[in-house]
């Protein structure tokens, strides 16, 4: 089938690989929960104050959790040589890369979105905020995964690349976190929240179109050389 050109094959392959080491899926989620627990401990258990900062805190935690899981995206394929095999094949790699990133999103972004109501509960997020927060996270974590994959591709050949990955990618996350937490904030304040969500969607569309191209060229550079 021409239309998916390896997208499904790589999605299925990566999901199967991740399924064999399920612990890796759980770690970002546990981090997400633990780090959020520290906020009331460090700031205040006062519900009135917490509810104002809850959307922002949840977004920052989601961002960090995505970054923590990102360095494993290409690492095992790089070390066992299968990435090199992929790169020397005559096929265009854009769709396989997109498949890998989708697998990453399905195993980090999506679970984070599903767990986020629990965090909302802990941080006394107002009821109106839950649905917009989840919608924002579902779309926004897609962008986070794509950009994290770019960082992972740039640092894949380095010994200690994971911290560098974080440094490189974080400034690029700025617009996503602004519009992501605004989506929840808007609904809490009783405003229409479709606007910031639509902008997140637009960012995701641009990222889906451009990131895989950049990732493929970066992988060619860092892996073959």
């Amino acid at each position, binding site marked *: 089938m021409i239309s998916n050109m390896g997208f499904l094959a790589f999605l299925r392959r990566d999901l199967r690989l991740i399924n064999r080491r399920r612990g890796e899926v759980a770690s970002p989620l546990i981090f997400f929960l633990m780090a959020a627990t520290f906020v009331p401990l460090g700031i205040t258990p006062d519900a009135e104050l917490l509810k104002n900062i809850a959307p922002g805190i949840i977004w920052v935690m989601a961002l960090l959790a995505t970054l923590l899981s990102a360095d494993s995206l290409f690492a095992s394929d790089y070390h066992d040589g299968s990435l090199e095999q992929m790169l020397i094949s005559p096929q265009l790699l854009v769709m396989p890369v997109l498949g890998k990133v989708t697998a990453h999103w399905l195993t980090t972004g999506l679970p984070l979105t599903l767990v986020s109501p629990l965090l909302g509960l802990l941080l006394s997020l107002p009821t109106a905020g839950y649905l917009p927060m989840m919608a924002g996270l579902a779309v926004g974590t897609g962008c986070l995964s794509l950009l994290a994959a*770019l960082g992972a591709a*740039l*640092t894949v*050949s*380095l010994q200690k*690349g994971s911290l*560098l990955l974080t*440094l*490189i990618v*974080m*400034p*690029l996350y*700025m*617009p996503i976190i*602004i*519009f992501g937490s*605004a989506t929840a904030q808007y609904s809490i304040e009783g405003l229409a929240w479709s606007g910031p969500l639509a*902008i997140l969607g637009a*960012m995701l569309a641009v990222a889906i179109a*451009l990131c895989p191209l*950049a990732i493929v*060229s*970066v992988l060619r*550079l*860092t892996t073959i*050389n």
Partner: protein
Amino acid sequence: MNWNWNWFYRMGSPRWFYESTSRWLPWLGALTVLLLASGLVWGLAFAPQDAKQGNSFRIIYLHVPASFLALAGYFLMAAAGAIGLIWKMKLSYMVMKCAAPLGAVLTFLALFTGAVWGKPTWGSYWVWDARVTSMLILLFLYMGVLALQYAFDSKDVANKASAILALVGTVNIPIIYKSVDWWFTLHQPATISFTEAPSMHPDMFQPLLVMILGFYCFYAVALILSVRVEILSRERKTSWVRGLVKQATNKNLGAE
């Protein structure tokens, strides 16, 4: 039509760059000193005081040119990286590599002078204003490129990787600026208003223009100087660099 591309290919030669800049760099340096000195004296001593801010506004003569160059420097760095990726030009990677620390320092200077200016005007060194925040993110972008540049063993991979990162940053900069702007209007604190005077008085504006020109020249001189150092260290094994070294040592020996 048969376009003559010779000048473009010649520009890719580090040796050509080194030799031709040796000829006109002193002139550019003199122009820089002239512009910066006259702009500073004019701006700091002769421009009229601001009606509200008194003398403290004079830091604008450093702050605005540094901010201009910080942003322009990022685009120059990314453009040099793109030229390197497309035409595999050695020289343009060197320009990219040297532009990164220079731009980061200018961004820091812009932030620092902004903070110093902010204390008397807004009452605090740091405010989360849209432009200040964008500048801070620009500094982070520069730091990312720098960190990546020095992370690889292979110079070739380092150059190409940081060129790609610089290009990704370029795509992102307008998005970042727009979203930070939007974020600021959402959270704008009531105490600080940024309604600027509609226009600067020409007596204040003319020295600023001189300073901006001076900073552009200064940027060019600093960039060319560091590219020349980079050229010498990368081409140290070639015969023309050895020739230069021999000439210089002979001259020194003759002088003694």
